[in-house]
């Protein structure tokens, strides 16, 4: 448990840097984990050079889902859109620095699902088709 609730994750949960809303944004998307009630909404602003210049998330849910959103946005702001689009599940899990079972994996990866939904301009709910089964 010390692992999951280590300072890093708790810090991003209790004092998020990227929670809120953007006045102007290029992409927005939201999704949730129906099994446990995690919800994440994201707004991403991309400039004319294809760089992610700002991002915000909002939502309700477990520490892991909300912290993961904050950590993810902290990582992508300032990076080129094309690089951000390549950001994978493994990349996010490396950022979080913890190993997770299949149930908590869904919580941690929800923000990535929302990000992908935003960047690929998906219709609401379409991100589910992208999900692989997380069972080994």
């Amino acid at each position: 448990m010390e692992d999951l609730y280590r300072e890093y994750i708790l810090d991003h949960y209790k004092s998020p840097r990227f929670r809120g809303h953007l006045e102007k944004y290029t992409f927005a998307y939201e999704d949730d984990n129906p099994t446990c009630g995690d919800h994440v909404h994201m707004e991403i602003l991309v400039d004319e050079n294809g760089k992610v210049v700002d991002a915000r998330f909002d939502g309700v849910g477990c520490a892991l889902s909300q912290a993961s959103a904050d950590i993810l946005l902290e990582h992508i702001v300032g990076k080129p859109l094309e690089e951000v689009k390549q950001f994978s599940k493994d990349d996010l899990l490396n950022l979080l620095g913890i190993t997770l079972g299949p149930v908590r994996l869904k919580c941690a990866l929800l923000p990535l699902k929302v990000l992908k939904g935003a960047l690929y301009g998906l219709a609401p709910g379409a991100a589910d088709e992208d999900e692989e089964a997380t069972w080994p």
Partner: protein
Amino acid sequence: MRPEAFSSSLDVPRLRQDFPVLQRETRPGVPLIYLDSTATSQKPRQVVDAIADFYLHHNANIHRGIHTLAEEATAAYEEARAKVAKFIHAASPREIVFVRNATEAINLVAYTWGRANLKPGDVVLLTEMEHHANLVPWQMLAAEREIKLAFIPVQPDGTLAMEALPRLLAQEPKLVAVSGMSNVTGFQPDVAEIARQAHAAGALVLVDGAQLVPHAPVDVQALGADFLAFSSHKMLGPTGVGVLYARRALLEQMPPFLGGGDMIKRVTLEGFATNVVPHKFEAGTPAIAEVVGLGAAVDYLAAIGMEAIHAYEQALVTYVLPRLQAVPGLHLLGTTTENRGAVFSFWMDDIHAHDIAQILDHYGVAVRAGHHCAQPLHIKFGVPATARASFYLYNTPEEADRLIDALYKAKEVFA
């Protein structure tokens, strides 16, 4: 009330010996404290032994064989049916249909009785606290048949608004379907009174007994239930088998559910004649060994006595409820202190239910987090998710103490 003074007619330390899993550690040095019996109950050795014994010494298919093993298997299966009938005071074993679980039992009623008897505009009366198993089948039927669904409201303390019943019954529902005990709040409505009023208004009554039957004495005659659904796995029995109780006259009128072997009397290429009840509703080879296991579970519960089990759980309610309410920032979904079982769903300020469950697991305490297949109830209370601790006959007040300790630990993490 301190644990030493916790009086009980149950010899809980002794009966815990029948459940080897309760001796487990979840990780080295951390004993399991299983508080998730509302999701599924643990099984005593006696139930597992009965299933193993059947497979090892008496296994054969039932109802059609003449040979010795077939006779033994049939006798074991039908004996379990008789035990279940007696357990709920059914008028006859013919009123017990073995299905897969309570969910399938309710679906059976919707598919057969529902389709044969409900016309567009007919009303089915439910409550706002139903488990999805007693909501979704009716929603599916509503979409298909244009029937209307109405709901007895839940009050802020988790009880049902009984004074709304006459007004709702004035809509002349054909069926009133209600939970005998909420799997979220633990609240036990006065089903007998609901049934009395429902029958007076011309409605049939279906009781979702998935939580009620394992935790309280049930007499379908006294309750006035026309249909009762319950699951083996929540009452010390194996998964894979559940029960639909229905009055014989109803079963005889209802069209069959699944078609195939055993539910027929006669088949030609042109058609078939159905078998007598309850066999009409048991198509194909059933979960024979599991039914035998359920029979052993009924024996186990009956030997202790459901009154004794219910009384013990009431003592646990009296012990646990105030201790939970004393945790700062903890809010119970369902604050009623009367007419409730030992099921406690709650949320905490600043700690999401999922995190509560995760931290409790670190201390060996197994609870559930989410909406517990009762999303409408959570929506009504404006809560995205709750953590739920549920107790059964093998839990102790000391385990409740560990739960409370772990909740305070969770508060420390998120302080």
